[in-house]
């Protein structure tokens, strides 16, 4: 809690004021992992946005938003799984991450639902082109209109709220890769050439254990609503494995360390020259930005606000973990802004363009930084067997000593047909036998090939107990053309989105901006195996049916047309004679060839 308060202090200054700023937070995590959290924020005044005079705000995205009347946009590209047991609470309270693959939700201004759908379609198609992602596959079957899970982050004029439509779509199957990073970088004013964005390298970024790229566009107005800016936030969060990232680019295959470098547990009975039980490391590994990201930072992005530049890079580690700043000739020292937080600026002004690096030395193990505990653990898995039906089981565990209210949202593909009557919510833990955890249900059933199932549940979990949610579903049989090329892989089911509703204590301790962003959590996605047909089937069917029909036709026709006579009356004699003649000719020809061949043989002798 304390840490999130700190983070909040640290980042609230991001919200208003200057037109462009960027931040990087580095937090060493247990087991040699490193959280790197990049944040870029650019603003455009609403008048210049209306007139299409773009400066920090990218023109390509701005025109798409204007064309589709999108007032607020959230786009996520994610990869991997956040290990909450080891890494603690999610960065940004989960408000800047998405489910595996691509997730998009937006508030679109439209007079009717139909118009909103048309604009949403244009939006997904345009973004698909901009980000080189298959966003255009977000069609009506993957689009839902959430009711409780999301709330607008921006300040929209109250009279316009009635015309805003929230649409949400996701593509769990999409593989996020470098081709999505390049357009993401192009949207930044410094384009990865200066500032912290110069650390982005596709090879390292997509090699991370967990990685999420987010784009959030929202209008931010002053208190009285007279002055508005359109704020665009680009966030990249990733957890890198330091050892893995340090592998050189030209020799990326992991190899075992030489035996001399390994310290063995000599108390083991099997310890000998060729068997060894490695001892747990007692030192922190040495690393630098160059090692981990493959590059150094090439100076500050000169656009960022001068009075903000002092805290561009922050390291969230215990003070005992020392590091050295290398930039140009001047010696820099990081400024201690909080007990566990040290910040520094990038070389700017006359030193602009100089390389900057942070060097963490090899040193005895330091106590890990005090990580915030997550407020909820969520796991979801598939149950059952066979190709006909299955089940979903989600386990939500509340580790805190106070109850938590949450919204659980699922957006299922149409070919997965849940039975709502099998929905079972059970709370384990002492004294919870009669606890009514399910407060509210929103359910919109699927229509084949038109829309997917949309479930939203309002749940409450008592202090330190576990809630198990389960339901059964049927697997639909798809049409021949509806299978993807790799049909036997299975179909991805989008992660469930969980929103933790604030309780009274939160409201007191968090800022308004953070409350607007909310606290989110996503489960992993699932792989649903469907019955897969043999794809040569249609041709077999055509041939078989045709053969049966031709057989039937042929026999009836022959019965009607042929003349039936006694066997010895058949005029086939002529036919038989003809065959005999043919046989005779064939034999004589063979004999002549044989004779010529043997004659030749005699000559040779």
């Amino acid at each position: 809690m304390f840490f999130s308060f700190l983070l909040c202090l640290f980042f609230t200054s991001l919200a208003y004021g200057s037109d462009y700023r960027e931040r990087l937070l580095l937090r060493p995590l247990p087991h040699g992992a490193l959280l790197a959290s990049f944040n870029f924020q650019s603003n455009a005044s609403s008048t210049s946005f209306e007139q299409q005079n773009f400066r920090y705000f990218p023109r390509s995205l701005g025109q798409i938003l204007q064309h589709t009347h999108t007032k607020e946009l959230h786009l996520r590209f994610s990869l991997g799984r956040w290990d909450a047991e080891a890494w603690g609470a999610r960065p940004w309270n989960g408000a800047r991450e998405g489910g595996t693959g691509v997730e998009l939700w937006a508030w679109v201004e439209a007079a009717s639902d139909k118009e909103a759908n048309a604009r949403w379609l244009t939006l997904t198609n345009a973004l698909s082109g901009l980000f080189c992602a298959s966003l255009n596959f977000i069609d009506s079957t993957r689009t839902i209109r959430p009711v409780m899970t999301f709330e607008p982050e921006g300040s929209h004029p109250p009279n316009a709220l009635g015309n805003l439509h929230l649409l949400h779509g996701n593509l769990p199957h999409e593989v996020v890769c470098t081709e999505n990073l390049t357009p993401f970088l192009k949207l930044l004013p410094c384009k990865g050439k200066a500032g912290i964005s110069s650390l982005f390298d596709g090879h390292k970024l997509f090699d991370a254990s967990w990685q999420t790229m987010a784009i959030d566009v929202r209008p931010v107005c002053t208190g009285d609503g007279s002055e508005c800016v359109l704020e665009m936030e680009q966030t990249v969060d990733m957890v890198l494995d330091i050892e893995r990232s340090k592998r050189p680019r030209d020799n990326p295959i992991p190899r075992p360390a030489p035996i001399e470098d390994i310290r063995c547990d000599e108390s083991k009975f099997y310890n000998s020259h060729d068997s060894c039980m490695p001892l747990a490391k007692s030192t922190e590994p040495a690393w630098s930005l160059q090692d981990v990201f493959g590059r150094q930072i090439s100076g500050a992005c000169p656009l960022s606000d001068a009075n903000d530049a002092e805290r561009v890079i922050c390291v969230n580690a215990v003070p005992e973990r020392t590091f050295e700043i290398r930039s140009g000739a001047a010696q820099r020292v990081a400024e201690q802004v909080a007990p566990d937080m040290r910040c520094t600026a990038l070389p700017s002004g006359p030193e602009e363009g100089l390389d900057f690096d942070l060097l963490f030395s090899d040193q005895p193990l330091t106590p890990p930084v005090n990580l915030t505990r997550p407020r909820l653990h969520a796991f979801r898995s598939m149950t059952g067997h066979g190709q006909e039906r299955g089940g979903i089981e989600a386990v939500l565990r509340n580790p805190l000593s106070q109850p938590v209210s949450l919204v659980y949202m699922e957006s299922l593909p149409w070919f997965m047909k849940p039975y709502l009557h099998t929905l079972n919510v059970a709370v384990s833990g002492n004294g919870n036998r009669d606890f009514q955890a399910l407060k509210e249900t929103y359910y919109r059933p699927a229509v084949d090939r038109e829309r997917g199932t949309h479930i939203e549940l309002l749940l409450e979990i008592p202090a330190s107990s576990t809630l198990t949610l389960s339901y059964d579903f049927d697997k639909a049989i798809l049409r021949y053309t509806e299978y993807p090329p790799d049909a036997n892989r299975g179909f991805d089911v989008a992660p469930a989105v969980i929103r933790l509703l604030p309780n009274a204590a939160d409201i007191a301790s968090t800022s308004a901006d953070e409350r607007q962003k909310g606290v989110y959590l996503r489960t992993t996605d699932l792989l649903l195996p469907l019955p897969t047909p043999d794809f040569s089937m249609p041709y077999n069917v055509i041939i078989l049916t045709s053969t049966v029909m031709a057989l039937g036709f042929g026999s009836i026709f022959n019965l009607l047309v042929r003349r039936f006579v006694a066997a010895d009356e058949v005029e086939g004699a002529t036919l038989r004679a003809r065959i005999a003649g043919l046989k005779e000719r064939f034999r004589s020809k063979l004999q002549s060839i044989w004779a010529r061949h043997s004659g030749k043989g005699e000559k040779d002798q």
Partner: protein
Amino acid sequence: MALETVEGEASPPPNIAEAVNIQKKPPPESPQNVWTRRMVILAFWAVALLLGMPVWWKTTEVYRASLPLSQMTDWAEGKNCKPVFPLRIAVKAPMLSSQEIETIIRITQHALDDLNDFSAHHLRLVPADPIIHRMSIQEIQEYGNKTSSQRNDSEDISLLLNLKPSFGSSTSSTQLQPYAATLDIYFPNNQVPLSTATSSPLANFIANELQALFSEEQASLSYLMASIPSVAQTSKSKALSSEMATKLSRRSTRSFKYAPTYHLTFSLFTAKARPSAWEIEAALEEYLSPLLASLSIISNFTIDSQVQLYATFSPSIRQPEFDHERQAWTVRKEDLGGFINAAEWPLSPSIGAGPTVNFILYVPDSAQSPLLIAENGGNSWLVPQWGGIQIMNLPFSADGSTRPTVLTNDDLRPAMHVFSNQLMSLLGLPDTPNSLPLKLSTLTRLHTTSLLSSASSTLGALARLTQSLTSIAIPDSVATSVTTTLYRLDAACTDMKEGRFASALENARVAEAEAEKAFFERSMVGQVYFPEEHKVAVYLPLLGPVAVPLVMAALKEIRLLVRGRRVQDG
């Protein structure tokens, strides 16, 4: 069968041994049986041909709406409309009597007709205010209430000749108003011709001036019409000097195709991080808005602007080299085509219909400043049908950080002038005459002609397509679009004949859009890719085995029938 047996019996076996071996024949078939068999075969064939074929035909038929093919081809061949450009020139002479004006008009018209060698384009002089003379007071009031555009619809005056007597000089002189379609003519007072005269120096002077004024327009129109094969055959074109022809061909490759909306994108590209802002709103307002306001009678324009930092050259071109003579960095002329780093510079076209015209202001790095074109030392150029580029060399300073962060309105003035000139030439505005309204009206006529020809040729292509590909479907929407196109083409042609060029342009524009819509109809494109072989592959497994017994039975019966007939005849 029965006859055959008789035939066999006609030649008796030569000996008894063979007689034992002789084939035992089936009993003769009764005519009743033969008849039944034939009827059965006939019935099968009848079902196949009379029921099967029509059902198959009906169910696999593609819908083809009927198109007026002959009319479409006529348009494509230029039979329906011969472009003519009757320009009406109003003559106003407040100091002269109407009698004198009419005399001047008569003689000048004569002289003009003699001078003109391009029959499609002719100038007709009319008195400036006969309409008002003839109207009643009420009508004059209504006329006054009409807006200028409405007035243009009814009587399109291309140019106003303002005859003004000058008392001082003895020779005539002219002055063209740069921002109005008015030509002031100052003539010595004694040159007013008598009513009986057949020629006069004043009339010749006016005729020559007018001819000179419209010579470039005539050349452009003639060049344009010569490039349209259908029109070139039917109309006599004006002979062009080779110099003029090169100029016109360069202009036609450089300029954009006509579109109702153009998107203008102004981009500031900086090699490093400074300057990172420009006062573009003010600059556009001051230097470009007036031009766009006058151009708005032809097309609409949307404007957007962006700032992009750290713009590097594309690796495919030679990097700039330092020229010691000029003390400047130079980029070679052949590399200008690759100057735009299309892979990295975000210059995607704007969303919405219509082409995007890009204007790029490039500020080189202070280490590479000033940057010039090696061959001519210039710093701006034009990319045909794409946009214009201008390199802005900021005042040299050794220390890069002292460069300004913001380009002010004053800094942008020269660049904006270059951009507006580039815009005019990208839109295909002619160089002469030196009057914007006249240039615009020339452009209107040019665009109308090219739109008419493009719509007509699209119609022709559509007609050929539907005739050559008989298996593609033609939905009703195509037929509707074709009808609209034909109607609009007709209207545009009539408008041109009557000198209403603004409404001719409007009609031609709609005609062109509808013709394109008809040609690129989506459902028609899809059908082309469904091959006949595919159908055969699906039908063959059924039709093959069924057809073989049917055909064989029919053949056998026909053979028997023919043989029987021959025997009967013999």
